[in-house]
């Protein structure tokens, strides 16, 4: 059984070795001449705007919270999907209701404006 996973193991080993190796190797042989500009955080080549410790807009949290809640539905959908055929229409109905409840939540969120960025 386990041999089927062997290629994956090999791939992982190579990837890890390469990642670690390149970092370590560049440390060992690379030159170090730090300057203020070099030490500044990299922001896609743009000049810095304010401190990195700035407060993140609350909208991000809102998205995170929304994500947590709707993410969980997947946890319930998976087992249902596994026995989808055996449960038949009854299972579909039950799951439909489950989704329906979430849809009500979605409508609520939408109407409240939680999905709008601005």
């Amino acid at each position: 059984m386990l041999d089927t996973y062997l290629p994956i193991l090999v791939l992982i080993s190579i990837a890890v070795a390469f990642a670690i190796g390149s970092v370590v190797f560049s440390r060992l042989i690379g030159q170090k001449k730090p300057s203020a500009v070099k030490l500044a955080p990299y922001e896609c080549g743009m000049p810095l705007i304010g401190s990195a410790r700035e407060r993140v807009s609350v909208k991000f949290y809102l998205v995170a919270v929304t994500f947590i809640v709707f993410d969980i539905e997947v946890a319930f959908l998976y087992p249902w999907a596994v026995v989808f055929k055996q449960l038949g229409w009854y299972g579909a109905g039950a799951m439909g209701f489950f989704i329906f409840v979430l849809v009500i939540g979605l409508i609520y969120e939408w109407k409240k404006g939680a999905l709008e960025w601005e």
Partner: protein
Amino acid sequence: MSPTVYHYLTLSAILFSMGTIGVLTRRNAIVIFMCIELMLNAVNLSFIALSRHLGNLDGQIFVFFVMAVAAAEAAVGLALMITFFRNRESIEVDDINLLKW
């Protein structure tokens, strides 16, 4: 030696204790909440191990519910913490001290 249910239970107990100690020692409310999540997940580990050991599915079903509940709790908890932060500019539990005596 393959791991038996006792190993899982011991691991779960260790995780649970770590969570508990975290709740008692950390100052940041979010970290405290993460420690509580750790406790819940330790319990989940127990449930799964026991479910496998006993050969019945109740434990695994329970885990689904715990996960769902934990997510809902997280959502509500985060919301409460955000409002708290907006009022007090802090999320340290030592600042949650207006109501006492």
